[in-house]
């Protein structure tokens, strides 16, 4: 054996050692030093190299035995602290050396993770709604369904007697409870008055049906007395301080109620929100409503199914019941699971369902957050593979010293997981900083500390580790497959053609995703703009709806010159009930078109600046108009048949405000031009106006004195209705509130777009820097040969811009398809046009240019002598 063979033997011996899990590189190095000393000693004593090596290795013992000895001191084991510590050290060292790239990967991951963490926080909060009820899984809300021409009308208030009838008639229904918030105002005790408290009106079974625990009082009997009230802890403290509230008398509106129970405050994640509950019999007294009438729809109704009962069977039985009672063959009842009420409700008359969420919005944003995390992972992959040239040598060396492919994979995956964990740290900071802003946008009260609940924390760590593994997977396997000989010879630089194509592909994918977001945001914005500027057919600006509590109050207000006009009428934007039946001469028996019932006095036209299409509106001069005349809108006129509807006799059966059924016959005296009564999501419904029946007053206010007029109205209210909150509404606001969810969507989508763009640009910046570095020499030569700095910047940017443009083109079909789907939800919508696509292209190119140019310019303006000395 010569010296060369000896070296080879030592290398083989080391490779054998490296196969043992406990023998880390540094142990092997020390054992090698010891072996070499021993071999040198033995050679000095006269042994030949071969003998010396054999004896020395025999003295050291079998690799497995050595491993067993080292295993004793090595704690904890593989993938435990020591290894983790090693990866952490290596990872931190790499980061220190490559601050720019590390910033790009970690900041990108942090942004992606922050989005995901926020979404998880939001989603878990939304999903927690109404889960606290003990019998929650067997509780369902009853939704009345009536098919009409446009689809199905779904009403959150079914026929009032349905609940009790179901309990007594159907074995599947174990119990029921009806609920609504009342229009009673103000809770008072002595000189303390609280005017904004929400008062719930419910069946006496409320506290046994739902799980709202009572601190004092008996849930079974608390609401038995007609004038009993159960109040929340907070209201109790406000009214009575530390004194015992039980048995105390308080005033709601003008009636006295006895406190029969104190309950814990309603949890934040409840779709029902109230500060006290009174028995529903009081509503009957106050409004004289007829709870026995099957045409009355005053309350939300909940049922609890008997154990083992099939919800769909129960629903069909309930539908059968309602069909028989209403004599409507197409009426139906749907059972909505309690846990779906918060997220999956899109029903008329659902005002008691407070702070509704939207499952589809939630899904959309969860996907968006995951997409941004994916963008960040792609950045990681792209930069890691691009820079693999630099790490190739390290990998080559490790492989030469005996590391196996799996060791390399483990090391790189470990490093990327560590970077992801560092990213998570940064992400948590980010979330902490932006949570207040997010709460504001989403209309939530998410708390940062909730992140640390075990379930959520485990989920967050899971996502982080998975994204670390995902981001590290490709680079790890790619690096592990390097041929050490090639790498060390220097013939390898920054991956082959295949990798370059993949890198470009990933960049294109990133920008396609970004373009998708941009186009989506612009189209949503365009639609909201369309809604804002669309001529609704009526002018609701500077019109307020309010109430008068007395003749004197009314006279005092209307006498003021700043009130330009006033009308007792239902207002555009208000929810209207449809007539139970409308018939006329020549109506087809198969025609079940529903007509909305609206009320208006002659001043409606002036206040809302509506126009007539044909005939005339109500007139003070015509006495019979009050009781016998009807005005229809253009849509209704079309339903009534060809030719002019003027003079047609309509027999209308409708539910009165008291829940009684009334039938009257009217003559059509005019056709009012169509206007949008509700949201632009819905097509204009056929409407019939009659004079009588309006109980709201709408005031058109002088635009020049808006604020002072509102102050005047409030002052008058306080002097005529002391002790009650001033009730007033801008009709504009009411109409605007239809689109609250859409505005939220736009705002959050905007944030996601910015983040996506930021992440994608980070990736581009990193890649541009890498390529500029790789082309340093080329750029130097070009400069020496006379290329201008500007020409060099163009040369470097051209390729990137082509990718970004390609990405945009690819994104267009998907973005337009998704936006089209969303716009389909509106009966009236803006046409998206080509502008959003062009804007997205322009914007992404501009931002991409900005991120590339900096690096390109630096490379182009560098001193050529330095660039030529590079490498």
């Amino acid at each position, binding site marked *: 054996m010569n010296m060369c063979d000896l070296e080879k033997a030592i290398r083989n011996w080391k490779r054998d050692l490296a196969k043992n899990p406990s023998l880390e590189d540094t142990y092997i190095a020390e*054992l090698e*030093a010891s072996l070499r000393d021993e071999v040198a000693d033995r050679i000095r004593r006269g042994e030949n190299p071969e003998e010396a090596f054999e004896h020395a290795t025999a003295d050291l013992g079998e690799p497995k035995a050595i491993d067993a*000895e080292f295993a004793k001191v090595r704690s904890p084991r593989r993938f435990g602290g020591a290894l983790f510590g090693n990866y952490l050290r290596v990872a931190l060292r790499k980061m220190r050396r490559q601050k720019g790239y590390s910033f790009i990967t970690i900041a990108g991951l942090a942004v992606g993770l922050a989005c995901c963490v926020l979404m998880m926080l939001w989603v878990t909060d939304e999903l927690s709604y109404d889960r606290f009820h003990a019998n929650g899984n067997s509780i369902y809300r009853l939704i009345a369904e009536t098919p009409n021409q446009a689809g199905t009308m779904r009403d959150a208030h079914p026929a009032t007697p349905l609940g009790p009838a179901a309990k007594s008639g159907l074995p599947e229904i174990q119990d029921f409870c009806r609920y609504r918030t009342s229009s009673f105002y103000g809770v008072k005790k002595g000189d303390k008055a609280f005017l904004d408290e929400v008062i719930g009106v419910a069946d006496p079974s409320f506290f046994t049906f739902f799980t709202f625990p009572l601190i004092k009082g008996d849930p079974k009997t608390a609401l038995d007395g007609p004038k009993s009230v159960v109040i929340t802890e907070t209201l109790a403290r406000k009214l009575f301080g530390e004194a015992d509230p039980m048995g105390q008398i308080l005033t709601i509106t003008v009636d006295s109620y006895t406190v029969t129970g104190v309950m814990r405050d309603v949890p934040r994640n409840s779709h029902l929100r109230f500060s006290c509950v009174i028995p529903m019999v009081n509503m009957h007294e106050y409004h004289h409503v007829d709870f026995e009438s099957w045409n009355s729809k005053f309350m939300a109704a909940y049922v609890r199914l008997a154990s083992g009962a099939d919800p769909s069977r129960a629903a069909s039985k309930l539908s059968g019941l309602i069909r028989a009672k209403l004599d409507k063959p197409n009426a139906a009842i749907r059972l909505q699971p309690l846990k779906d009420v918060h997220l999956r409700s899109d029903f008329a008359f659902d005002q008691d369902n407070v702070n509704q969420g939207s499952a589809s919005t939630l899904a959309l944003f969860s996907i968006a957050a995951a997409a941004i995390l994916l963008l960040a992972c792609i950045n990681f992959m792209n930069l890691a593979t691009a820079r693999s040239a630099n790490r190739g040598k390290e990998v080559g060396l490790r492989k030469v010293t005996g590391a196996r492919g799996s060791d390399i994979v483990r090391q790189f995956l470990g490093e990327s997981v560590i970077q992801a964990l560092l990213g998570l740290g940064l992400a948590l900071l980010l979330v902490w900083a932006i949570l207040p802003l997010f709460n504001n946008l989403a209309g939530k009260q998410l708390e940062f500390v909730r992140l640390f609940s075990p379930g959520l924390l485990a989920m967050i760590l899971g996502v982080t580790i998975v994204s670390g593994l995902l981001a590290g997977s490709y680079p790890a396997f790619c690096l592990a497959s390097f041929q050490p000989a090639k790498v060390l010879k220097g013939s390898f630089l920054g991956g082959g053609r295949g990798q370059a194509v993949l890198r470009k592909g990933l960049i294109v994918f990133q920008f396609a995703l970004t373009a998708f977001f941009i186009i989506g945001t612009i189209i949503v914005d365009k639609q909201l703009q369309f809604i804002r500027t669309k001529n609704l057919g009526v002018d609701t600006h500077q019109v307020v709806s309010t109430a008068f509590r007395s003749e004197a109050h009314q006279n005092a207000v209307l006498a003021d010159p700043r009130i330009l006009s006033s009308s007792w009428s239902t207002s555009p934007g208000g929810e209207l009930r449809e007539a139970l039946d409308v018939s006329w001469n020549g109506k087809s028996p198969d025609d079940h078109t529903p007509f909305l019932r609206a009320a208006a006095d002659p001043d409606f036209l002036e206040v809302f600046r509506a126009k007539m299409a044909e005939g005339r509106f109500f007139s003070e001069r015509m006495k019979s108009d009050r009781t016998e005349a009807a005005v229809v809108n253009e849509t209704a006129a079309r339903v009534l048949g060809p030719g002019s509807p003027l003079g047609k006799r309509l027999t209308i059966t409708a539910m009165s405000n008291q829940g009684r059924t009334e039938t009257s016959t009217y003559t059509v005296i005019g056709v009012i031009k169509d206007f949008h009564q509700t949201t632009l999501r819905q097509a204009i419904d056929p409407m019939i106006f009659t004079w009588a029946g309006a109980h709201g007053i709408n005031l058109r206010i002088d635009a020049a004195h808006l604020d002072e007029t509102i102050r005047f109205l409030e002052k008058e209210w306080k002097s005529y209705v002391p002790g009650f909150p001033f009730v007033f509404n801008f009709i504009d606001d009411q109409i605007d509130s239809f689109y609250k969810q859409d505005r939220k969507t736009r705002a959050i989508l905007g944030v996601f777009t910015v983040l996506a763009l930021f992440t994608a640009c980070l990736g581009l910046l990193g890649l541009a820097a890498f390529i500029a570095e790789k082309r340093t020499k080329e750029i130097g030569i070009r400069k020496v040969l006379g290329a201008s700095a500007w020409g060099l910047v163009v040369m470097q940017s051209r390729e990137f811009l082509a990718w970004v443009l390609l990405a945009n083109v690819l994104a267009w079909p998907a973005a337009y398809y998704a936006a089209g789907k969303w716009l389909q939800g509106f009966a009236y919508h803006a046409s998206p046009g080509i502008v959003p696509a062009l804007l997205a292209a322009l914007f992404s190119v501009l931002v991409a240019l900005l991120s590339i140019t900096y690096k390109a310019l630096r490379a182009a303006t560098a001193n050529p002598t330095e660039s030529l000395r590079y490498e």
Partner: protein
Amino acid sequence: MRRYAMSSNTLVAASAKPMVLALLLSGESYGYEILQRVRRVSGGELEWSSAMLYPVLRRMEKDGLIHSDWRVSEENRMRKYYRLTDFGRREFEREKARWLSIQSALRKVWATSAAAE
């Protein structure tokens, strides 16, 4: 693992720490040299293996008794040199006291047993 001559494994393992402390008291040393010195001072009685020594050194370093650094030796080879820390010096004194007291106790017991025979 190799033979420990006449000594029982446990005893050798137990004496490894005080032995290393004592050897490093006179100055820094590296693994192979420590092995040689142990053999010399024990007159060949104790023959430690590398597989036994390095884990012991590792543990002692972890415990803060010794400190190490890689340097190039005079023979132009990389070696890891170990030296005592202050804590190691104090620990040496404590170990020495413990072993002396065991030794004196054993001597007394053996003296009495010899007399009884």
